[in-house]
């Protein structure tokens, strides 16, 4: 690592094995804290590891998977996961983009004040604000129902009725996540050189045409990347459903990750929990491969 640099031009294309030293610590971390647990998790999903076989579990092949594919819950949970992830993504990502565009206007007063206010949901630990929301949405004495009562709407069981529970967790997730997307898109929009906007203005482009002909084409891959990763993050977002509804009522807001946690830690059926997690990963993997095929968004990475 301390070796003097070779002439830079010659060094450009050659593979540099010394550079492995730079990423060695990360590779070790990955090996012990990602690969090993993942492989062990995959192995667990092929055993009968549960509270009754805690020390003497054995290999059972694909029994857990065939059990899951035969169970009526799987379809509901996958459908819930899709509604939750798609529903969250289609509101939070466009909202963040819209707010970033609005705040990016020239001569708009107070944009820094707005931006600071939007920091509130992001800057307060989600773990706490989710619990705050669960109180605000409570049926009895919850402030949301109290406020709706003022305009004559009778109390709604936001978190405990199958009709509203999914809507409520998506709504709270929207509150939690729109600031992140606003900031990320602000950063993306600001990376477009001002001259392009000026040129568009000279050519008499209105806001809509500037958006569709300048901003969006330039940010195509960024938008794809941010959207797809927003989707994946939401798919695996455990705390919102877990703390708000605990997956209930019934299993109407159980998503794959909360259901995996429920199987593993509430029913102590670790093998089944691991199998659910792996099913979730396989679906995501297919999703990433397919979306990348169409959007080429991964090219941002290298």
């Amino acid at each position, binding site marked *: 690592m301390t*070796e*003097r*640099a070779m002439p*830079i031009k010659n060094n450009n*294309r050659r593979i*540099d*094995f010394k*550079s492995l030293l*730079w*990423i060695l*610590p*990360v590779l070790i*971390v*990955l090996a012990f*804290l*990602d690969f*090993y*647990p*993942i492989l062990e*998790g995959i192995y*667990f999903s092929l055993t009968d590891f549960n509270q009754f076989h805690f020390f003497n579990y054995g290999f059972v092949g694909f029994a857990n998977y065939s059990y899951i594919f035969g169970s009526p819950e799987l379809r509901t949970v996958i459908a819930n996961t899709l509604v939750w992830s798609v529903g969250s993504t289609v509101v939070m990502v466009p909202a963040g983009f819209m707010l970033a565009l*609005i705040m990016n206007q020239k001569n*708009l007063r*107070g944009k820094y004040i707005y931006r*600071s206010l939007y*920091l*509130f949901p992001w*800057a*307060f*630990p*989600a*773990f*706490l604000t989710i619990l705050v929301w669960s*109180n605000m949405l409570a049926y009895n*004495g*919850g*402030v949301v129902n*109290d*406020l709706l009562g*003022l305009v004559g709407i009778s109390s709604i069981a936001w978190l405990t009725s199958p009709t509203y529970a999914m809507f409520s967790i998506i709504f709270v997730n929207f509150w939690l996540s729109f600031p992140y997307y606003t*900031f990320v898109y602000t*950063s*993306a929009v600001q*990376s477009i050189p001002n001259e392009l906007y000026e040129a568009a203005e000279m050519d008499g482009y209105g*806001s809509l045409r500037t958006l569709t002909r300048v901003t969006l084409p330039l940010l195509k891959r960024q938008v794809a*990347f941010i959207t797809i990763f927003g989707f*994946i993050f939401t798919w695996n977002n*455990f705390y919102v459903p877990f703390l708000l509804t605990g997956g209930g009522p019934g299993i109407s807001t159980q998503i794959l*990750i909360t259901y*995996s*946690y429920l199987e*593993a830690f509430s029913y102590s059926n670790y093998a089944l929990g*691991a199998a659910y*997690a792996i099913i979730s*990963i396989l679906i995501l*993997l297919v999703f*990433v491969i397919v979306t990348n095929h169409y959007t080429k968004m991964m090219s*941002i*990475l*290298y």
Partner: protein
Amino acid sequence: MENKYSKKEKVQRREEVDVFRMNNYYKNIRTLKKIASHLVLILFALFAVFPIYYVVITSLNSIGSLSASSLADLLPNTKMTLVNYSQIIFQHPFFIWLRNTLILTVASTFIGVMLSITSGLAMSRLNVPAKRMLLYMLLILSLFPFTMMVIPFYFMFSNFHLLNTYLGLIIPYSAGAVIYSTYLIKNYVDGLPTSYEEAAQMDGLSKAGALFRILVPMARPVIVFAAVLAFMGPYTDYALAGQFISSPSLYTLAIGMYYVSQGSITMNYGTYAAFSVLMGIPIFILFFVFQKYLVSGFSLSMYK
């Protein structure tokens, strides 16, 4: 009279009127747009701030329970009190929990970000073998949910006698931060020009020296951004800490919160709110101090 203006002048005059009308039209549109913009921004601002306002004002009330609260309690009133805060500070070991949490978060943020800086720089500037595969691999690893890791971690850490220790949590927390931070730093550094470090190398700095001394200061926004994000996770983690920590002297704020809230949501709603406020303040300060980096830190290089 009709011939007062020549034809050419008439055309010119008409054009001027048109331009004037157009300008007026655009001015009106612009005013309307401005009003609409502010309206949208204000609505979202109210939406963003209300729950935080709600928890702060609740923490200052001495309401017995959730169902006893009313809308009148939402406005500042004369019954406000700090009793909830004193209860948390004097009846629970709040500062011990805070200290434990800070030890864990500061240590794991530091380690995680340090590792990410070296790996991010290498991924951006050096010809790492199988780089593309490594990047894909990191991405695929980020798909794995932590619920799958908890049990293998538990076994591994109990074998190494790391349960109920700081180290036992610092290790997985740092590892958790590494993947995303490496991405962020790599992407940001990709967007920086190479001429500075090349010049430094000409002046006799080693490759490593050039990368660290030149690029780290230039990448400060993204490093701060990554650090703030890395800090946030462990600070509020319950899923892992709840499984690993059983001795009360090592409780973190999240475990303490859970422990207090077990009784207090029904017993004293205000105490719970006050706990949320106290626990939220450090993160809140961190975010506002580093606000400008949150915009400049996230960069996905554009022209690729």
